[in-house]
């Protein structure tokens, strides 16, 4: 198996994923829909009150909007991961996967196709959600370079969660379980600094919130979008993403090799 074949096979598998996506766009729409609803809910229903409690600068709805957008973008990425797990779980029950496994195809290719396809789907949703946020008044105060960096960090997070959710999708025997397993991912931004500052939380929860992977990612995003200090969060965020990607991909690869026969 030459390297060019690994790349070529991965590209072929990616084409397959994109064809699926194009033919059945409802999942992509669904993936973008949920975070938009959450965004509107939090900004218009809770935003006035939550904004006042942000602390340092007394604020209102507008301040809360700029506080919550990074969290919403992560909810988008996490929600897309749930969609990925469902897609993969469904795909693994397709007979064509058994056919792939009798062909001389790089084992990583099928998974790479799913991961990259999922990242593209996620980033499409991120773009749509960003547009809605801009439309309701969100204005990043930093430079375009910082915005690009924020987009790149979201991309890296999408890679990490896609790898993880491809593995979760392969782990489950049924599509229902596949849709439930990544559920905690959706909750993590809430149990961190995504929606309110962690300092108002009870001790045990705060300890968790401060040390879970989404918090440094959110803090870095926030810094890149509103200029608040990033400090050590940036490195930590990247380290978490790379770590999760690696573990997720290796796990998926192992599971693929031991897939049941039918």
């Amino acid at each position, binding site marked *: 198996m030459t390297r060019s074949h690994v790349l070529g096979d991965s590209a072929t598998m990616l084409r397959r994923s994109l064809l699926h996506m194009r*033919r059945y766009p409802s999942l992509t729409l669904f993936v973008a829909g949920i975070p938009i609803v959450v965004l509107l809910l939090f900004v218009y229903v809770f935003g006035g009150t939550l904004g006042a409690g942000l602390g340092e600068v007394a604020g209102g709805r507008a301040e809360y909007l700029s506080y919550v957008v990074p969290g919403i973008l992560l909810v988008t990425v996490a929600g897309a991961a749930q969609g990925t797990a469902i897609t993969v779980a469904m795909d693994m029950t*397709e007979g064509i996967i*058994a056919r792939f496994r009798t062909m001389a195809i790089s084992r990583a290719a099928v998974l790479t196709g799913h991961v990259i396809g999922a990242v593209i789907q996620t980033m499409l949703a991120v773009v749509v959600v960003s547009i809605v946020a801009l439309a309701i008044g969100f204005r990043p105060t930093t430079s375009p370079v910082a915005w690009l960096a924020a987009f790149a960090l979201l991309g890296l997070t999408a890679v990490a969660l896609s790898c993880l959710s491809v593995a979760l999708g392969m782990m489950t025997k049924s599509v229902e379980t596949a849709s439930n397993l990544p559920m905690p991912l959706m909750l993590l931004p809430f149990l961190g600094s995504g929606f309110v500052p962690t300092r108002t939380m009870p001790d045990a929860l705060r300890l968790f919130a401060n040390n879970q992977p989404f918090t440094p990612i959110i803090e870095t995003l926030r810094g890149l979008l509103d200029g608040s200090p990033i400090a050590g969060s940036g490195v930590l965020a990247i380290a978490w993403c790379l770590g999760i990607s690696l573990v997720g991909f290796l796990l998926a690869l192992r599971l693929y090799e031991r897939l049941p026969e039918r």
Partner: protein
Amino acid sequence: MIGSNRPAISVRGLRKSFGPLVVLDGIDLDVAEGTVFALLGPNGAGKTTTVQVLSTLLSADAGQIRVGGRDVAREADAVRHAIGVTGQFSAVDGLLTGMENLRLMADLWHLGRADGRRRIDQLLERFDLVDAAKKPVSTYSGGMRRRLDLAMTLVGEPRIIFLDEPTAGLDPRSRRVMWQLIRDLVARGVTIFLTTQYLEEADELARRIAVLDHGRIVAEGTPEELKRLVPGGHIRLEFGDHDTLDRADRTLPGSVRDDETLSLQVPSDGGVRALRSLLADLDRASIDVHGLSVRTPDLDDVFLSLTGSHDTDKAVPR
């Protein structure tokens, strides 16, 4: 290709269990290059498991298995380069069109753009899928799906093809179409390993047949050899009156008479030689025969007598 001595597939002592369930209990078989080999067995006999092991989908617990001269455990990728598999369960991508499915295979076999397109067009033509090529596979009938499945297997022009119950669920006409496609492949020197529950199918297509039951090969040979394994062949003679029947009965010892129908059943393999000598005997004794019919044992007899009861949907627990 035909006449080459190198076996395309050789299996020695293949064993496979799922937990406590012994599914394959020491299987030996050889398939000569360029021939059709049929593995025949009732539900749950282990046919699919055998195909999955030979096609690198499952690893064996024990045994020496070579396909295309390569070891399936140690050289899986080399084996995969030589084989094509059409499994019992449809292995097509239901979300894509027929054309896209074939394109996918062409890309994965790394055919060039032009080569790939030529091969795809030929296959669509040959498998009568030109009209449906641009429709999603989810709208195909069972027979179309099966044909697409086989067409996808052929994109890479594999030398050894595994077909797990290729005609299950097809109507008689589609079944004949599938048979003809299989014969065409063999004519090109392809080796075919086929599983089936239809005896007629094995008889039609296969050079050699193995009967699998409860994870063991209970008989192996050419269709004729297998038919010889079971008694039951006879020639049935009918006569005009009791007197002739009496004389015939005396002339042909060992036969069974039936006075009601004035007939006699003579045990025989039903071959032409046996028939000719029987007629000569009757002639010499000037016995007039009104009717004659030959009943040769068919593979159904073989199957039933070898595999016993048929409600065995499970293998033997250890």
